[in-house]
């Protein structure tokens, strides 16, 4: 028995070349995430079920009265308008950004990086400065209004243009990356087989880059919903987004519990879209373009 057992040696495991990282290396980033993200989220959650006891003071208890207040028709209307404005802004961003990203990925070779730089450079300036720059362009006494008759400052159209202008680079980058990864020989094969260019675009390019478009769309839609500066500056303070309501509640009313409940409600409403983003981002990672 012993000889048999000795004769049957266990198979020697080959050396694995898969990278192995000690878990403790993630501790710094996990700590940063816990302190600067999870911590404030937890504080927000605790405030949202508390009661205001004074200016900027909170009585810690468990009450859903703040969320009951969120159900008021004023806030529901503002939520609906915000989602509609953000959806419109996102659609316009897709309409403007996709052709630009397509042209850069498909037809530019020598100047591709330069075009990318031109898209990114405005991001190097402050968001507030960019919005004020747009305000100057749209000024009723400016060339656009005086010479072309496009007088839209302090209207919802100015807010829409501001949203597209400020978030366009955020959409173009993931879509461009998606288009860059695409195998363009598929288009050549399709046209060789008799497909019309638009048919090839619709059935191949659009389908393969759809995860990138959805990712880019959600990357702009979600921050648009929380916008504060653009409605204030380009809308003349007249177009309330949920972000403005939250700002007024914390700043003017110093009602931290209700402001927290509004913030949590906005996050809950947007979480649906975040899940969609994760699904599409995962699919794009798995299947690529």
């Amino acid at each position, binding site marked *: 028995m012993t000889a048999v057992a000795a004769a049957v040696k266990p198979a020697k495991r080959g050396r694995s070349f898969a990278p192995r990282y000690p878990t403790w290396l993630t501790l710094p980033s996990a700590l940063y995430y816990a302190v600067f993200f999870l911590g404030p989220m937890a504080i927000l959650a605790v405030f949202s079920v508390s009661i*205001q006891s*004074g*200016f*900027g*003071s909170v009585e810690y208890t468990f009450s859903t009265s703040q969320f009951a207040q969120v159900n008021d028709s*004023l806030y529901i*209307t*503002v939520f609906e*308008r915000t989602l509609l404005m953000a959806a419109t802004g996102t659609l316009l961003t897709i309409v403007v950004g996709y052709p630009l990203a397509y042209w850069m990925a498909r037809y530019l070779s020598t100047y591709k990086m330069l075009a990318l730089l031109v898209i990114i450079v405005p991001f190097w300036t402050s968001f507030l400065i960019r919005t004020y720059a747009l305000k100057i362009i749209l*000024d*009723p*006494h400016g060339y656009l209004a005086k010479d072309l008759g496009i007088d839209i400052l*302090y209207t919802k159209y100015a807010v829409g243009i501001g949203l597209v202008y400020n978030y366009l680079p955020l959409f173009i980058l993931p879509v461009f990356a998606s288009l860059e990864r695409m195998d363009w020989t598929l288009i050549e094969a399709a046209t060789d087989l008799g497909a019309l260019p638009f048919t090839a675009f619709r059935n191949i390019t659009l389908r393969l880059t759809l995860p990138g478009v959805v990712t880019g769309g959600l990357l702009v839609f979600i921050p648009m919903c929380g916008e504060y500066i653009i409605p204030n500056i380009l809308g*003349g*303070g*007249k*177009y*309330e987004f949920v972000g*403005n*309501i939250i700002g*007024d*509640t914390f700043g*003017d*009313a*110093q*009602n931290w519990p*209700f402001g927290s409940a509004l913030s949590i409600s906005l996050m809950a409403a947007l979480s649906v879209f975040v899940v969609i983003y994760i699904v599409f981002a995962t699919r794009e990672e798995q299947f690529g373009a």
Partner: protein
Amino acid sequence: MGELIQEGGLMKLDFNLIPNIKNLDPKFRKASFDPTGEFHVIKDFGITMFFYQNTVVKPASEPKTMKDFYELLNANVSKGRTNVLDGAEEVVPLAAMALGYSANTDDQAELDDTQKFLLSIRKGVTTISSFGYINDASAGKIILSQGWNGDVRRILKARKKEGDITAVLPTEKSEVWADSWCVPATAPHPVAAHAWINFLLEPTTAVTEMEYHSYPIPIPAALDQMPAETKNDPIFNVPSTYTDNYEYILNPNPQLVNARTKIYQQFKAA
């Protein structure tokens, strides 16, 4: 400041460290937001008024009250940009005062009236902003707006050549407000803070300040040193015949502040 005093956020001042307090007009030592006068020293004060471009806005009769201002909005918004000052603590109390109510009313019926009134003039408002209106009005981009008296004075100076701005001190109710110096309860260097306040109460320092920001500082010796043109300007030195009707806007309790904030949000979202 009233809120900070209520919440214990301010330190009681030691006036032994501020000998120049004797320079301040005694009438301004106490205020409704600090009834004992122990927590603040007034920095400057002002009032809320309104102005219009007389080449564009041509009212049938000379507007005299804040209610007249609101009633001009709907009729003139198509001619150019109209503006009201922003913030729940400005929009709601000013509208309440225009209706003859107290700025600090917490009567629900009066607040409901104020809300209805604001919604009725909402379409006449192009912008709701307290920031940047000085430059825009100086450039002739605003035809009708509320404003603080020091800012309106600067606009009048800037438009002197065109001469097209009419400024109106409301004859009935409006807002009087004050900027004040105070020391936080947790201030690490309170002695230095007291020395700073004492420095600012020197008449020569006050003159420099007034010439810069165009708001009066109630130090009689400093006011006497101001040029006659400034001293006698009713927009700088607002006569008591007007200010006797004006009120400080206070935040007496969170319930009223929340109610004002909601009315303000309804006004903006309409």
